[in-house]
């Protein structure tokens, strides 16, 4: 509705209808739901028989104190998150170092696909809880168990997406290069690599999501520091505003990574796309929480 049209509606409608038409906007729905939710939460909690559910104001105060580094936990929120991110980075690096060669092999050679396929599917479907506990039993408390968990939780996503990407390199462009006698190096650099990019993005996105969950669990059971461990600390201390507050920190970080990091990066990498939407295209790989059949269909060689 243009501004003039809106003004005209205002001028003629009686106040009640004006309010009604305002409420019909989707933005008011959004505001209403936020206000309503927070208000209901704040008002209902004191009526509950338990005092273990925090009110929004308690959570807000907690988060503010954490951000001011005023905390009873042994580490500040900055220290914990930066430690977790370091573990995540090392683990993801290892996952790509192992997963990319394996994925290339599986995409290019059918025997490798037959040889490894079932194990990759099992890896995709494995709950990250299992990786966290196994790594905890193997490596005890320290940095190794979380890092290994991250690698194990992410590596199969990398393998399956890279393999699928190799199978989807457009044949007509390869033929075109072949017809013009373009060399091997230029073909890899300018045809194969760019067409793999969407699949690398998918690998990173899904691998990261799964690895993050695994990391938190590994820190809960097999570490004495890190963001996951601090959540456990608040649980043991019976401070539920700590858990909810940390959950909100997690969500903020997740949104930051998704919108800013991935959004910017894919906008730059896929700047050649004609559409306005330059987010990484979704090549329909195994999804973030992996149901087994989806993983199977993503892994089954399609274009053979």
């Amino acid at each position, binding site marked *: 509705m243009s501004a003039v049209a809106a003004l005209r509606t205002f001028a003629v409608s009686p106040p009640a209808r004006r309010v009604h038409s305002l409420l019909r906007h989707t933005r008011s729905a959004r505001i209403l739901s936020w206000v309503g939710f927070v208000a209901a939460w704040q008002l209902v909690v004191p009526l509950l028989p338990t005092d273990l559910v925090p009110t929004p104001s308690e959570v807000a105060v907690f988060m503010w104190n954490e951000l001011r580094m005023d905390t009873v936990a042994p580490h500040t929120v900055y220290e914990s998150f930066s430690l977790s991110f370091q573990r995540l980075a090392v683990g993801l690096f290892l996952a790509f170092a192992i997963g990319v060669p394996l994925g290339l092999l599986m995409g290019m050679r059918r025997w490798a696909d037959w040889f490894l396929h079932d194990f990759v599917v099992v890896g995709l479907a494995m709950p990250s809880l299992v990786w966290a506990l196994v790594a905890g039993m193997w490596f005890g408390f320290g940095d190794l168990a979380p890092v290994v968990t991250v690698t194990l939780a992410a590596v199969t996503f990398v393998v399956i997406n890279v393999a699928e990407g190799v199978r989807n390199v457009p044949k*007509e*462009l390869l*033929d*075109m*290069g*072949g*017809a*013009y*006698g*373009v060399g091997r190096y*230029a073909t890899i650099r*300018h*045809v194969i690599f*760019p067409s793999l990019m969407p699949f690398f993005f998918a690998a990173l996105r899904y691998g990261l999501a799964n690895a993050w969950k695994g990391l938190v669990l590994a820190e809960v059971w097999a570490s004495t520091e890190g963001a996951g461990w601090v959540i456990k600390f608040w649980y043991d201390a019976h401070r539920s505003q700590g858990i909810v507050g940390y959950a909100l920190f997690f969500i903020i970080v997740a949104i930051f990574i998704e919108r800013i990091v991935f959004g910017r990066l894919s906008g730059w990498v896929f*700047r*050649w*796309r*004609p559409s306005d939407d330059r987010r990484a295209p979704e090549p329909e790989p195994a999804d973030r929480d992996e149901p087994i059949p989806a993983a199977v269909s993503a892994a089954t060689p399609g274009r053979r």
Partner: protein
Amino acid sequence: MATIKVQDLRKEFVTDTSTVVAIENVSFEVGGHEFVSVVGPSGCGKSTLLNILSGIESATRGTVDITEGDRKAKLGYVFQSARLLPWRSVIDNLLFVQSSRGPQVRARCERYLDMVQLSHTAKQYPGQLSGGMQQRVGIARAFSIEPDLLLMDEPFSHLDAITARSLRRELHVMWQETGKTVLFVTHDVSEAVELSTRIIMLAKGGRLVADLPVELPFPRDPASDAVALARADLLRRFESLDLLAT
């Protein structure tokens, strides 16, 4: 100006249940400043023939020699769809297929881009161009490697009639100016009559049924009686083939 010698060419495809013959004992020779059209209905093995000539596929039997003097000829290829790398700019797409680098090579690419009147799009990505413009980039790319022989696989079949018409004219001018040998595959009889100096007719099953010179003066007006007669004659020949086949 290249020479093509095709001798007893045969191509079979083995599928899960049967063996399909795509090309059966085809022989012909092309040389000099010719514009040769290979015409036939869909599925008669035209594209397969081109793929073998360009080395994308190998023949089951027979020989193909494409020479320029006493060396192997250089080929330029225009595909049915433009087949541009979507992630590289127009000028980079031309540079991608060059065998050498350097300012002269770049200048040459820009010259051919100018020839198809697209120099203003050099820095754009293919996705920002219309289908006709993309196909013109494909044609410029083929000319830009200064090939001895141009292979074209139904390059205008995906375009609307108006764009195709103006591109045909453009192609004809480029062929005359550069003096290249062109082998042009099409299912469109009028297109073949309008452009070529010679027409090779392929029938279903990949048999070569006729090899006809087209001796009409250029420029050919598609609406003129002479062109219309030639077109009708060609279509009649195809019809009589179908009668024999059934």
